[in-house]
């Protein structure tokens, strides 16, 4: 502290500036707030436009009409037609099922594997781990052709398993979890083992309670990734009754012409589930992303 005081005494001109910034907003700060606010609103415009259009009647929403943001007549017509068609709900359910299977399986498989790699030494371990780390570099998208054929010949095309299982393979999650487990001291486990707990019990009672945040991050990101996966479900969910939301919305035409209110109602409802997930888990998501950057 003394050093700072000495320095500031040597450069008195700088001092009032520092003080002013702390006490009341400077012009700079006001500009920052206005710029950030304006940009944020601009960034939200496409979404707001979708909401606005979805609340217009079809005639008001159609292309030739004047562009205005507040509907002249508020209408739920678009949403109603959407629900009458019923597809949307099916896709939402399918997305939920598929993303849940993927998330649960990913968590279970990756936690087991990460724990195995972190805590045990077994013959061939380095080879297996090396192979899985190599998988970090294998681009899934470049495998669509053989994978499609594989799922077809397993007779899994057009089933929930066919949609979900190939998405479960996530070496990066094993890697992340293993790094986290490695950092947990073994003392707790030793104590539990002295009490006669088996390996699974130790994992469940000791390790997992300490891994809440990382599990949440892995879970949420797996879920979002799977929910928004487009390419794979595009290939295997051939019938609309099996499609996930992104594919159904992208691939199935509205029946006739382009009905913008209905179209945007579908967009709004399509965006909603994950926006809600995001708002609820905002903290974990932000932390998760920060974790990627700071690892």
């Amino acid at each position: 502290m003394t050093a700072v005081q000495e320095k500031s005494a040597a450069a008195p001109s700088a001092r009032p500036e520092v003080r002013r910034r702390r006490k009341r907003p400077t012009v700079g700060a006001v500009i920052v707030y206005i710029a950030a606010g304006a940009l944020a609103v601009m960034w939200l415009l496409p979404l707001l436009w979708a909401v606005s259009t979805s609340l217009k009647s079809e005639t008001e929403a159609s292309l030739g009409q004047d562009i205005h943001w507040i509907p002249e007549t508020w209408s739920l017509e678009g949403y109603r037609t959407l629900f009458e068609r019923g597809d949307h709900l099916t896709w939402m359910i399918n997305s939920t099922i598929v993303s849940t299977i993927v998330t649960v399986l990913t968590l279970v498989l990756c936690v087991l594997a990460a724990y195995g790699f972190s805590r045990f030494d077994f013959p061939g371990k380095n080879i297996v781990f090396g192979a899985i780390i190599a998988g970090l570099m294998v681009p899934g998208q470049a495998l669509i052709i053989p994978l499609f054929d594989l799922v077809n010949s397993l007779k899994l095309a057009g089933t929930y398993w066919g949609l979900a299982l190939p998405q479960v393979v996530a070496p990066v999650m094993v890697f992340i979890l293993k790094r986290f487990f490695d950092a947990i001291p073994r003392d707790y486990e030793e104590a539990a083992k002295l009490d006669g707990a088996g390996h699974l019990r130790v994992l469940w009672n000791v390790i997992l309670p300490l891994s809440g945040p990382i599990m949440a991050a892995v879970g949420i990101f797996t879920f979002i990734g799977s929910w928004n996966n487009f390419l794979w479900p595009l290939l295997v969910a051939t019938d609309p009754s099996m499609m996930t939301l992104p594919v159904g919305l992208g691939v199935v035409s509205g029946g006739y012409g382009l009905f913008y209110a209905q179209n945007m109602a579908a967009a709004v409802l399509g965006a909603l589930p994950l926006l809600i997930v995001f708002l609820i888990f905002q903290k974990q998501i932000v932390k998760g992303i920060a974790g990627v950057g700071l690892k």
Partner: protein
Amino acid sequence: MTVKTETPAAASAATKRPPAPTARKKRSWVGLWFVLPFTAFYALFLVWPTFLGLYYSFTDKSLTGRPASWVGLENWSEAFGDERAWSALWNTAEFTLYSTPPLVVLAIVLALLVNRARKLGWFLRMAFFAPFVVPVSVVTMIWIWIYQPDGGLLNHYLQLLGIQDAAAPTIWLQGESTAMWSVVLTTVWWTMGFNFLLYLAALQTIDPNVYEASSIDGASWWRQLWHITLPLLKRTTALVIVLQLIASLRIFDQMYLMTGGGPNRATEVAIHYIYIAGFEGYRIGYASALSYVLFVLILIVSIVQFRLFSRKED
């Protein structure tokens, strides 16, 4: 330590509580049981298709299911001489070149703003990140409409601002010179939030004392930015660029939904051409060979990334 990837910075917990010595690990088969389920999935859905694809690339296997026969290197030599494949790769590179700078610069600028406008933090974070969780088909539905030449939102405002002549509306997604930029703009809007959060997190770890000291030295805000902040964001930027590079090589969804690769193949990217060759053209064998070319490219980028990062962490 049995695995070399361990680093002191591996996890924040590690720095607080050093791990117990590993001598306690016993060599037994138990660990295999933990590892087996994942490994089995991995073998079936990743390793096996990798070899299956390699095998198919030497056959004329067709999606129609008619009998396939061995064709040796025919697919491979066709792939290397296929102009459409090279132009798809070029389009992929073009997309990367166009999209990476705005995705980096905008993310930094917005993160700097939000970092200083902390009272609005929650709202700003939400606004910039929200598009990232929106499914791609919703994003494209909205943007296709925004780009409509007649009556679309973008042209409407350009005309209102007098930038565009109402008699000659810009044709965005169907114009050969504008289509790629349009997809880039949509992509920037959609995915910038992720990079933004990366930068924001990095900014928030910077010790405020660093600025304190320098502002006392009389450094201007601008100087601080250039000499303190940006250098501290170098690592994040490297990460963002590498992630972007890999994501770009795999780009498909937006093009498929917005332009279908058009107009005149101006936005046809690598994965899309593989899709076209394999599923629209039924040529599983040939598409497998094409996949392998892309596969190797992505592999090279990934390896470069790996080396880059392991060096940085040392």
